[in-house]
């Protein structure tokens, strides 16, 4: 028992410090100092007009108070039209987007599709994901003119990138044995997809679709800012005119619809799983 004893002698009486998360000293200090240097630089370069901010606090208070008495009636016609347009865009874009994403997801799953198809589908997904909805909307408005068609196309395009990527990942990680069993029975490719793949990814497809509908609705609320239809234009006008009570009413409607959608998707996801 002599060895451990000397070991203990060495340890006792010495202070103990938690070993740092990043072992290398220079790297740790470079990261810490670099981070603080960045923070200082960032704060230095932000120009804040404090007197303007101070003036704004009063308006901020008004806006918060507006939430206690939202005005649904004065511009009820505009709000109604804008909301219907947003919902219409959401529904149409979700249906089309989901419809197109399924074949693209199959093409983008390496265990289902041959390599050339895989590469094409993956690049479609990459392009769709890299471009922001609002930027796509600007371009489409420039090409197709103002109105909900541009918004509809934007949302469909964005849905493809989102849904295909997640669905393709799900197909790639599915249980291979089940799929092989169907293949072994002599099924054709389409039968194999129908019996071996579809049942495995269906719950996830439904869950993701619900989630995407939720996102599409939220996005449809801003497309109006660039003229692509929906409630955004009404909201923008309300802010421009400082009609906070109308703006508060619109925001409340958006929040309530999003909550309802989340609740609904929770129920549906619980049922399919």
């Amino acid at each position, binding site marked *: 028992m002599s060895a451990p004893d000397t070991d*203990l002698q060495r340890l*006792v*009486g010495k202070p103990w410090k938690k070993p740092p998360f990043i072992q290398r000293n220079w790297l740790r200090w470079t990261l810490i100092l670099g981070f603080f240097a960045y923070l200082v630089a960032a704060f230095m370069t932000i120009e804040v007009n404090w007197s303007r901010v101070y003036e704004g606090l009063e308006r901020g208070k008004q806006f918060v108070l507006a939430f206690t008495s939202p005005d649904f009636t004065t511009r009820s016609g505009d709000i109604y039209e804008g909301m219907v347009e947003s919902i219409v865009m959401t529904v149409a874009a979700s249906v089309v987007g989901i419809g197109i994403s399924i074949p693209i997801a199959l093409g983008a799953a390496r265990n289902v599709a041959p390599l050339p198809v895989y590469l094409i589908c993956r690049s479609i997904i990459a392009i769709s994901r890299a471009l922001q909805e609002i930027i796509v909307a600007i371009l489409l408005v420039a090409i197709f003119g103002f109105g909900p068609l541009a918004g509809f196309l934007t949302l469909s395009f964005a849905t493809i990138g989102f849904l295909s990527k997640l669905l393709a990942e799900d197909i790639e990680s599915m249980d291979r044995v089940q799929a092989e069993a169907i293949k072994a029975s002599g099924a054709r490719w389409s039968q194999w997809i129908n019996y071996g793949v579809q049942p495995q990814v269906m719950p996830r497809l439904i869950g993701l679709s619900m989630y995407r509908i939720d996102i599409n609705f939220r996005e449809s609320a801003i497309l109006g800012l660039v003229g692509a239809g929906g409630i955004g234009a009404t909201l923008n006008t309300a802010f421009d005119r400082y009609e906070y009570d109308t703006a508060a009413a619109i925001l409340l409607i958006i929040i309530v619809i999003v909550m309802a959608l989340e609740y609904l998707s929770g129920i549906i996801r619980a049922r399919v799983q």
Partner: protein
Amino acid sequence: MLRLEKLVKTYKTGDQALKAVDLDIPEGQVLALIGPSGAGKSTLIRCINRLVEPTSGKVYLAGNELTELSAGALRKERRRMGMIFQEYALVERLTVMENVLSGRLGYVGFWRSFLRKYPQTDVDEAFRLLDRVGLAHMADKRADELSGGQRQRVGICRALIQDPALLLVDEPTASLDPKTSRQIMRLICELCKERGLAAIINIHDVALAQMFVQRVIGLRFGAIEFDGPPDALTPDVLTTIYGEEDWEATIEKIDGEDDEAAE
């Protein structure tokens, strides 16, 4: 040392986990609590340090009544009761040393513990305990890198560094292989003897309990069915605790405290 008086625990679901349990444990006695799953063993242990609030009854630790204490006073009393868990319950993402030192949380202030600036005496004691269980060289390893037996040793160190008068041990060997189980039981009992601690050990393995403890309590449906020395556990007694079964094979003659003296 520890006295339970008419301890009752009824869960919200209406299940009566403990039915007026009376128990008296003298200084330094190691006691095994046996009984089928759901007999209330875990509940009994957790009612003592009030991780589970007892419905009624009294718990006296060295003369102090625990069930009426305020949150602050309860924390002070909890320092006197070290607890060892079934699944080790180490904070997996902290180092072994932090896990052991966390046994001192009741003694140091928040900022001291937050900044890991424990008194030197605590650190020394932690190293001594780790050395005693043969893990001093592992101090800076993360807890999730250890094996089951090693984790349980760290758990023992965490309980002992509290400087407790009583150990509450909940199924210490349930997740361990037979050999490690024996080593852990032996370690717990040796340490209790060295430090004169009383202990309540919840255990499934009747043979293992008989091997190491001075007194056995049998619990069934939340009531004490048996209280006596380990060699009084006859097949009849086991049948009253657990129900009908062939017990001859379970009650081993504990002959020749053998093999794994050196680990």
